[in-house]
């Protein structure tokens, strides 16, 4: 991605002419704006971007960006996005979606995406609820909360996306807040720039199903931190930091585990597999192995 040339694009280039279906006050607007700005800052051409989502309020996002988008099926943004990136390494690929999409039905794909380490960015818009289906428990809903599927309070221990991502050794982990556009934009930019699978956990409140105070509640807990580079690679440190103060939520780049991404490894395999051959095998050559 060329980022040094004089900037060619403005935010308007990434906007698409479709009014979001989101409720007013929804955190997703913040995420959308952050992505507009991040793409602008990275100055990547709209036609060189692919954004894949699952299903959910948050997953409507690709429809509002002037890129190659896909609002796919629930929980499968990661496989589709990885397929796209692996087949088209020159495209900037993002996967986006909700907490339910990514941690519930899509849970099985997350650790594998992390270990496969395809060079793409996954933005999880966590509202701690199922928005689109109207207010059911999500994997991040706090224990004890009342929802339509937990009318007598939830008895499920919530998941912690950042800790999971760290446990999965995701090569880049950050957290942002839909209400802090500037910082979130920075996180998205850094994530896209990171070579490998990057994960941005975004607190993106759903006032409709978690109440009007959710924004304020979160704003009171967040603190932007700058993790020292030396600590970024430690899983233990990341865990300790997340657990340190139950009353605080860290925003920032929280973990990094740089290593060759899948695309690079695949190129290495190509070279190994061609050993002894100075060209791409022809079809006729492939036939040889079937000669008796």
């Amino acid at each position, binding site marked *: 991605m060329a980022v040094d040339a004089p900037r060619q694009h403005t935010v308007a280039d990434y906007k698409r002419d479709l009014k979001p279906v989101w409720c007013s006050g929804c955190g997703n607007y913040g995420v959308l704006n952050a992505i507009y700005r991040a793409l602008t800052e990275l100055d990547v051409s709209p036609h060189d971007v692919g954004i894949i989502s699952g299903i959910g309020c948050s997953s409507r996002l690709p429809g509002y960006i002037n890129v190659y988008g*896909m*609002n796919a099926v629930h929980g499968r943004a990661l496989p589709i996005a990885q397929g796209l990136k692996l087949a088209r390494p020159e495209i900037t690929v993002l996967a986006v979606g909700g907490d339910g999409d990514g941690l519930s039905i899509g849970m099985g794909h997350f650790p594998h995406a992390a270990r496969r380490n395809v060079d793409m960015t996954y933005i999880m818009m966590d509202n701690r609820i199922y928005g689109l289906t109207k207010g059911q428990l999500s994997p991040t809903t706090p224990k004890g909360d009342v929802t339509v599927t937990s009318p007598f309070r939830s008895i499920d221990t919530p998941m912690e996306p950042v800790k999971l991502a760290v446990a999965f050794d995701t090569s880049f982990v950050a957290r942002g807040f839909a209400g802090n556009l500037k910082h979130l934009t920075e996180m998205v930019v850094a994530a896209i720039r990171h070579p490998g699978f990057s994960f941005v956990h975004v607190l993106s409140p759903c006032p409709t199903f978690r109440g009007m105070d959710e924004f304020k509640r979160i704003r009171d807990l967040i603190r932007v931190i700058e993790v020292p580079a030396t600590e970024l690679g430690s899983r233990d440190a990341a865990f300790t930091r997340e657990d340190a103060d139950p009353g605080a939520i860290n925003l920032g780049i929280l973990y990094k585990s740089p290593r060759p991404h899948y695309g690079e490894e695949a190129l290495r395999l190509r070279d190994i597999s061609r050993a002894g051959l100075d060209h791409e095998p022809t079809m006729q050559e492939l036939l040889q192995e*079937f000669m008796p």
Partner: protein
Amino acid sequence: MASTDIIIGIVGSGGDGVITAGEFIVSAVSSEGLFSFMLKSYGAQIRGGESSCRVRISEQPVQSQGDEIDVLVTFSWADLLKFEHEVELREGTVILYDEDDPMPEDHVAQYAALKAVTYAIPFKRLAKERTQTILTKNVIMLGVLAELFGLPAKGIRHAIARKFAAKPGVVEKNIDAFGIGREWVKENLEKRDPFHLEYTPGAPKLVMEGNAATALGAVVAGCRFYAGYPITPAGEVMVWMARHLPALGGIMVQCEDEISAAGMVVGAAFGGAKAMCATSGPGLSLKSEMLGLASIAEVPIVIVDVQRGGPSTGIPTKTEQSDLMHAIYGSHGDSPRVVIAPTDVEDCFDTAVQAFDIAEEFQIPVILLSDQFIAQRKETVRPFDVSRRAVYERVKPGRAELVDYKRYRLDTKTGVSPMAVPGMPGGQYPASGIEHSEAGDPTSRVDTHSALTEKRYRKYRYIIEKYSFVRTYGDEDAEVGILGWGSSKGVIKETVLRLQAEGRKVHCMIPQLLHPFPKEAFDRFLAGKKILVVVELNYRGMFLQFIRSRCDIKQKVVHYGRTGGKPFSVREIYDVVREVL
């Protein structure tokens, strides 16, 4: 009696090298220009249990595994028992066994009744005494077979040399062992059976299994992206791709499950690549939802389903044709897709190429309905022309079209709208599993839903027009018609040939395109027939049900279907057809 067609069965335990021996035969006859066809079968043990193979050899193209076995070699009577349901002997069968494991009393009468010719051979003893290892037992056995029945000796030596090329000492030892077997026969055996293969050597042919042929076909069609999850009996497609795609600059990625594999393929195809995944029944079931996405988002993907015994985990190692209905109908909603079925190993190659042609031309998911019977058998095939094809590339929007680009433009003749791919300036659009407008925006409007559904199904007419390839054999004006599909082709064709040789009139049709239904071809076939025999390897009679749902069948119908676990034999089909002839 000079034979031009011999069926050899070999049975043994893990260490006996039964399968290797069979492969040597196949390799040998193919290198000398004959045809062959080999089935393997294993016991329940994961490894090291009993195994068997059956090789048919002929100067003429081999259509099927044939009927009963002409020559049976068993290293162990106990193992043979375990395959009693799979090894059928003919009258006059030749049986070779190890003198170390004498024939059990109760077999004697049975074989006498069969007029079997039996030879006790010191396989093990020869191996131990003459080669100082038991491991050469199978090659000694090949020597015996070569000498007794005239199998191509040069070819077998060639096969041995090729197999152990990396280990020179081993080559020699085995070539020796082969000679020891031949010699022993010359010196000790009095031939009491009539089988002897007569043939004129010809140009070498290829040896291939269906799964490799499918993979090769895909690659020839331009597939450079494969995503898979291991499953029997489709695993070899992935293994082949793993070995070859990297060098071709492609990607083979092992996914966490079949949903992910299908998802990766959708993503890659959305990105413009020709992409494929292969699986078997359980995986196909899991891909149902992703198939629907490809359908509504009009993403061209190819899914190979190598059918096995079902339902659920069923019988993973055995064949069945019981995924037809799921392939056609699996996935909620009105979700168009194409289903085509290869009929033999060579056809796996052809249909794989065609699957991509259809997918790309019509932007629709294509299911290639193979099965264990063709996927894992070894067959001699004539060298392919891997360059002969005008491979189809999907229609992309031109410059004019990109002004106010509508990905799902309705006003096209065939329902196919030019598809922009990432990287193409001006082609940005949102693809969607949600019903959408021509521009790709979500909608819940009845009229749009209706128009877009019609557009997606409009393709069917043109697919049928272009791809209604059917195979027919026999006399067009016969009153008895046989309908079958996929891997049943071989036995059906052979049945027809046999009946024709007997001077009987019969006609048969094997469609390649199963869905959308090539009604014209069927109606043409049905015209004039009085009796229909429908043959398929499943319990429910899916193919017949499917035909009935589209054609008005006035004929008397004889349905011959049974669960899989074992492919049809020619005799089985022959008997059914003879009943009505």
